[in-house]
């Protein structure tokens, strides 16, 4: 990305923050809260997620067989199935089916957005009307959806009223949501009555009975499916599940995940062509029992309602290739609930239009765009994923969404690359090149190299501190970093310590508690930040562990690979994983626990390492690793002396947990230990600080990062919070908090440090 492209991107994000941010924020955060309520109070939630995941895994595995079955079933019902290779193929078939129809009504479907069916039909002279209110607003405004489930989420009632007043020129201008809805109901109601063809998507397709399941709140899908006599359903092949027996977990999950409702208003399962009478509103005097009956059985309706025609278009469009692709396959398990977008702090603040992409947006969209469109389409917005992992627990089918983002990043890195980025930095390349003993191809941008090789940079930084700090702090060098690497000059860079934690530990003569006297021995993992930048929290951790009777070691250990991973430099991340495991294996063999301070590193050990290491190794490391306060919690529970830690004496603290720490379910331990030690803890309701590692440094995202952070800032500056000591578990959270607030932040372990003097 050239400096100019970065500026344009920053300007676009700023504009979206101003125009759409507020509406999206209100809706997405509201729905996200509702999702929490709906899932927390639902005992079976976790079991159902597991079940849903298994059903999807199995269905995608058996996809060819299910396609065969559904074809037989639909044909036996009297309908047709068409397997479309790609968008053009699908559109051509649909055009043939629609024939000389004048008008078609549609129920919201992302799959038809994917193939741009509206454009294709309109070019063929068919009037197309979206009947989902949100989708219709966008059709009137000629805009694209900004959310999978709430396509017009970025528009306020006032904006919609203004749009409709201008477009439809009513006698009395529209104002309220009721007026707008009533108008939409009547206007679209007429279109539905007049339509020759109804088109829907399908949330699920049941192979055995040839049924489609539609999940909606408005009722428009039901009308589109049954009012006109021809029904075309367009669904990606991944929507197939074996039978109605597998449907239940999804019915229980989808609305909870999507909007926080326990069940959607309408969950409609139809096996078209249905027996429901076709409604001919031009023929007002025909009783329902005679509508569409070909005769024969004397009314009352029957199977031979031969007015009805049904076509199921199953769309491949890259999905077979995704199925073969070990990394992208998971994307096909997605049930398009949008929970990943709603749980994403960046999405909550700027909305889907900032993510880019041709059709899909937010969360899992990287996987979809890479699979059904192209890597280029995915490349645009893949950047907004900071890997915070908040979406992982949100997803009802347990898709590892951040991993998919990293994989796609890696592929983009290895693809053609971004020529503009590489070409405008030749003067600087040598410097970055010197820092980059990575496994990555030459096309990788200098900025990615810079952030991805942060551990090398940190070593150099410590070795040359204070010179490196002075350089990082001065105007001219910040200008160079901004111009060539796009590192925003408003953001403070980390200050490297001359003496690393490992050096400090050696110099003090190792552990003050000898292994012979201790019940437990622990290796404190010296992550890059703790070792080179925030050595204070490392020292505090050593003292806390010793105070709790643990013999401590702080050996040199390779960095976890988090930095290259977040740049999509998977080969480099993998090398780090092997090195780090090699460095730790002997300790694990000797029954030493691995204690980790930085939550994002623990998350790597517990999660991504299973992708990089042999299964056994990954398991062993995951099982032996603990977050530092989680570890202290365990020690205290097992009889360690609380009195050995610095008591809180009622000190008021404001605590912000780290995104990945929350995903791992470790926030509660920190709160419990602090409270146990007598601290008065206020926890942040805001889940994300908005920083997430390198993201907040990047010039084009700096403002978005600050905007996301503003929620946390607001909570920590209320009357109740203003005078509290600020505590956070992650380095990036601390950096963001230091930038947002007047008072400094520290790691909880620093509060507990027995040598701390207030």
């Amino acid at each position, binding site marked *: 990305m050239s400096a100019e492209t970065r500026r344009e991107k920053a300007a676009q994000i700023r504009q979206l923050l101003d125009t759409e941010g507020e509406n999206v924020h209100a809706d997405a955060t509201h729905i996200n809260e509702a999702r929490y309520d709906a899932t927390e109070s639902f005992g079976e939630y976790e079991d159902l997620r597991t079940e849903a995941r298994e059903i999807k895994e199995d269905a995608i595995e058996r996809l060819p067989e299910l396609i065969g079955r559904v074809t037989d079933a639909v044909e036996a019902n009297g309908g047709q199935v068409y397997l479309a290779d790609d968008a053009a193929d699908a559109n051509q078939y649909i055009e043939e089916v629609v024939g000389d129809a004048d008008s078609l009504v549609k129920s919201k479907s992302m799959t038809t957005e994917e193939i741009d069916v509206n454009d294709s039909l309109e070019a063929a002279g068919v009037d197309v009307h979206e009947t989902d209110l949100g989708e219709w607003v966008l059709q009137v405004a000629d805009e694209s959806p900004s959310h999978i489930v709430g396509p017009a989420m970025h528009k306020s009632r006032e904006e919609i009223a203004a749009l409709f007043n201008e477009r439809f020129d009513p006698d009395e201008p529209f104002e309220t949501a009721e007026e707008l809805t009533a108008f939409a109901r009547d206007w679209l109601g007429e279109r539905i009555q007049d339509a020759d063809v109804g088109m829907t998507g399908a949330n699920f397709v049941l192979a055995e009975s040839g049924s489609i399941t539609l999940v909606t709140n408005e009722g428009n899908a039901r009308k589109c499916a049954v*009012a006109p006599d021809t029904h075309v359903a367009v669904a990606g092949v991944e929507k197939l599940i074996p039978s109605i027996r597998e449907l239940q977990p999804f019915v229980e999950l989808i609305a909870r995940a999507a909007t926080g409702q326990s069940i959607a208003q309408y969950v409609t399962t*139809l096996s078209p062509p249905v027996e429901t009478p076709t409604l001919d509103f031009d023929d007002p005097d025909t009783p329902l029992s005679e509508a569409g009956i070909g005769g024969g059985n004397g009314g009352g309706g029957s199977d031979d309602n031969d007015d009805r025609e049904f076509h199921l278009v199953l769309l491949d469009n890259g999905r077979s290739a995704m199925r073969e692709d070990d990394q992208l396959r998971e994307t096909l398990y997605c049930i398009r609930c949008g929970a990943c977008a709603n749980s994403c702090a960046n999405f909550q603040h700027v909305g889907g239009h900032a993510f880019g992409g041709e059709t899909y947006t937010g969360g899992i969209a990287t996987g979809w765009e890479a699979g059904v469109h192209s890597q280029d389409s995915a490349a645009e917005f893949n950047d907004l994923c900071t890997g915070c992992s908040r979406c992982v627990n949100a997803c009802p089918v347990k898709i590892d969404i951040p991993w998919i983002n990293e994989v796609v990043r890696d592929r983009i890195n290895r693809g053609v690359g971004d020529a503009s980025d590489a070409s405008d930095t030749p003067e600087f390349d040598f410097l970055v090149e010197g820092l980059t003993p990575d496994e990555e191809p030459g096309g990788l941008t200098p900025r990615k190299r810079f952030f991805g090789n942060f551990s090398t940079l940190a070593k150099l930084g410590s070795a040359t501190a204070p010179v490196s700090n002075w350089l990082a702090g001065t105007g001219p060098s910040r200008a160079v970093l901004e111009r060539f690497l796009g590192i925003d000059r408003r953001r403070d860079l980390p200050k490297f310590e001359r003496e690393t934690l490992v050096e400090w530990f050696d110099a003090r003569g190792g552990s003050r508690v000898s292994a012979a006297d201790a019940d437990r021995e622990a290796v404190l993992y010296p992550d890059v930040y703790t070792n080179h930048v925030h050595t204070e929290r490392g020292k505090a951790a050593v003292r806390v562990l010793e105070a709790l009777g643990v013999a401590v070691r702080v050996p040199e250990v390779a960095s976890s690979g988090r930095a290259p991973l977040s740049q999509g430099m998977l080969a480099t991340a993998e090398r780090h994983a092997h090195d780090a495991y090699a460095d730790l294996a002997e300790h694990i063999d000797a029954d030493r626990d691995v204690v980790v301070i930085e939550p994002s590193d623990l998350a790597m050990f517990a999660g991504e390492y299973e992708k990089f290491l042999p299964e056994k190794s990954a398991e062993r490391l995951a099982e032996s690793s603990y977050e530092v306060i989680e570890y202290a919690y365990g020690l205290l529970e097992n009889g360690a002396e609380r009195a050995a830690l610095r008591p809180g004496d009622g000190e008021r603290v404001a605590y912000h947990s780290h995104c990945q720490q929350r995903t791992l379910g470790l926030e509660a331990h920190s709160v419990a230990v602090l409270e146990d030690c007598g601290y008065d803890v206020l926890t942040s309701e805001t889940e994300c600080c908005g920083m997430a590692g390198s993201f907040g440094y990047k010039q084009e995202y700096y403002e978005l990062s600050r905007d996301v952070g503003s929620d946390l800032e607001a909570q920590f500056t209320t009357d109740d919070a203003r005078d509290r000591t600020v505590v956070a578990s992650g380095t990036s959270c601390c950096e963001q908090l230091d930038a947002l607030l007047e008072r400094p932040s520290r790691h909880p372990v620093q509060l507990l440090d027995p040598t701390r003097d207030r």
Partner: protein
Amino acid sequence: MATETVATFESSLDELGVGMTRTDPEGFDDALAAIIDEPAVGVPLRIDGVSLDDVPVTVDPTTAQLESARTGVTPVGTAVATYGTLAIESSAAGDEPVSLFPECHVAVVREVDVVWGLDEAFARLDEEFDAGRDSVVFATGASATADMGEMVEGVHGPTAVHVVVIES
């Protein structure tokens, strides 16, 4: 047990803003007449002991009658107590349009067909699908949208729903 299920059903409906009337077959005609807003249309109830014969409901309406009706009356084969969900059939008699087009949907269900949770409803459905049934609409409350900036009830589907439970 059945009482508890129906009580739960009633409170689920209450949360959805859906009214419920209990009656026995003898009281059915009067109870229904008190609920419906005319003109009303309906489909045969398929429930022993009750019918739409003596109430002001047009069975087997024309499309014009369907369009102008304020109330649509249909039977419901299964109802789910914990969610307040009604399993509407999609039949040739027109359950689907009659429950969908008029402003108010009145659903008639036998007490014994109110089941506790979706588990039971799906168990029934599995059997019914095996026996050849192939459609069902799980409807929960009135139709709704938040797409116009605020939650509004009654979009493409009914604005109001009322349930009549037939005690046996």
